[in-house]
């Protein structure tokens, strides 16, 4: 649930941002879009152990005592991983009495393609992004592996990596079907299709798609500052107590029980 909050955190809010939905424990301290300090550790399965001491060290490194707001990756991604970040963020926001901003982990992942689109970073896989110079739109499709041929994915459109528009909501999808459908509509729309994120487990399926590029990228917490600042500027913050991960799907047990489980789960 999103609330409007009148505690506008000023022009350039000081924010503690983190995301634990993937194998990367990503955290940053940002002032608006400016990154004051960031850390990215790849110690999978260790997020619950490291999260709080990493945040403490990061605040110290940035020379910051108190922040104006907390921004956290709300998922989708690893269930346990997302819960770790969300639990830490809710508690910090509550204890400090600061606004909480939930961000889509997939949107943050998509933003990692920004520097390549803007030409600030280079990679062979990103060469087709040069197409942007011709005015061709680019569809950035962030994906995370969700096992059994599935991915958590979304779709964003950008012309030059600075202005973005969301085209598809975060959801769990079969990469085979969804990939082909995306490739067909990209061809029709004359858009350059680019999958970014956890490419590895789906490399074969993606390679089979005509005209698509795949760029293995990981979440960059530095990208969260700008996204969070935009939401704060609009007064779009989350209700700390009711804030919960976006899992994009019911648990297996609930699915098996059928529809009866759905409504009661809200109680």
């Amino acid at each position, binding site marked *: 649930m999103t609330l409007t909050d009148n505690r506008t955190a000023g022009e350039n809010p000081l924010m503690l941002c983190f995301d634990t939905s993937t194998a990367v424990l990503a955290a940053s301290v940002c002032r608006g879009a400016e990154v004051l300090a960031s850390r990215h550790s790849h110690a999978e399965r260790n997020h*619950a152990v*490291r999260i709080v001491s990493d945040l403490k060290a990061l605040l110290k490194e940035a020379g910051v005592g108190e922040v104006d707001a907390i921004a956290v990756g709300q998922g989708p991604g690893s269930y346990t991983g997302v819960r770790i970040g969300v639990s830490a963020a809710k*508690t910090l926001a509550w204890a400090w009495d600061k606004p909480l901003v939930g961000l889509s982990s997939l949107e943050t992942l998509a933003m990692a393609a920004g520097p390549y689109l803007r030409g600030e970073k280079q990679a062979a896989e990103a060469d087709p992004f040069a197409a942007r110079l011709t005015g061709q739109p680019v569809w950035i499709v962030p994906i995370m592996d969700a096992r059994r041929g599935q991915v958590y994915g979304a779709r964003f459109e950008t012309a030059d990596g600075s202005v973005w528009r969301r085209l598809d909501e975060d959801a769990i999808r079969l990469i085979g079907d969804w990939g082909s459908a995306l490739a067909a509509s990209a061809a029709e729309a004359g858009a350059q299709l680019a999958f970014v994120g956890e490419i590895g487990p789906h490399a074969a399926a993606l390679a089979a798609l005509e005209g698509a590029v795949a760029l293995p990228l990981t979440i960059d917490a530095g990208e969260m500052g700008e996204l969070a600042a935009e939401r704060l500027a609009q007064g779009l913050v989350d209700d700390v107590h009711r804030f919960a991960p976006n899992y994009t799907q019911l648990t297996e047990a*609930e699915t098996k029980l059928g529809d009866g489980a759905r409504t009661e789960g809200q109680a």
Partner: protein
Amino acid sequence: MAGSAGGEVIMMANVSEKKDGSLLLAIETSCDETSAAVVRGGREVLSNIVSSQIETHRRFGGVVPEIASRKHVESITVIIQEALTEAGVSRQAIDAVAVTQGPGLIGALLVGVVAAKALALALDVPLIGTHHIAGHIYANRLVGDIVYPALALVVSGGHTELVLLPEEGVFKIIGRTRDDAVGEAYDKVARALSFPYPGGPHVDKLAHQAEEEIVLPRAWLEDDSYDFSFSGLKSAVLAEINRTKMKGLEPSFGALARGFQSSVVDVVTTKAMRAAAEFGARQLLLCGGVAANRGIRERLAALCGEAGLPMLVPPMSLCSDNAAMIGAAADLKWRRGQFSSLDLAASAQVSLEAWSVTL
């Protein structure tokens, strides 16, 4: 050391002047209860909020770990807030944060541990990772003085243990179940007797109402053993039901419940009394969710009475999983300045003996 699982960091902070009036905020999320409490001086419960998920899990016939974890995240800050509000205490007044680090469901524990660590960072106070079973045992300190050496009989859905406390804060496990926990056995038998989950209390009630008893075997194990085993007894109940049905008769659930309860009570209380005598216990502590079981509670009270051994048992609200008991146990470490690092890890399996205070 800081990176080790549950790495205990000894920081002899200057806490002596607050020794008695310390305010601990405790959090417990080891299974399907989200709980937070404020406890003063390890003895006085200012608040103890417990949000049970039982209605949610009942539909699945047992606790679904993924759902338990999801529910904990949804309610954690609400419950902490309620605990402070009911205690009439501000966030800033909290001296330390205590949390169950294990044992329990790992995904459920993680939520409480991460929240507790975030709270310790935000409020800049020490963190005390606490053993769940130490919590059950020290729930007794919320109702009376513990006299050492003491013997604790821990009976719950996940645990059946005989623990010797030679002195305050020191735990020695002298017996434990080799298969099912008592509460688990009760729930399984309850299912066989067609009771809904969780059925343990139904079996207890039925056993008391029954006029006849089908005598079932007792698992004494080796002569000198304080261990327990309940899976054979559970199988005996199932076998008896099948045998009766094969004869085309209706099994007497009452007589079976009574037979099952008699066997459990007999073994559990006899071993507890034998251990109390052997180790010279000056007090017997009954605790854990199944301590509410009338059969066990009444027999143990009678045996303790005969032996002249004082017995403590917390009220029901402090027997089932709750955060006040975690605050009571954490006080052992608070008074000794033995705190956890922010790298504290939740753990499904964690040693009670190793959690003993450093002398």
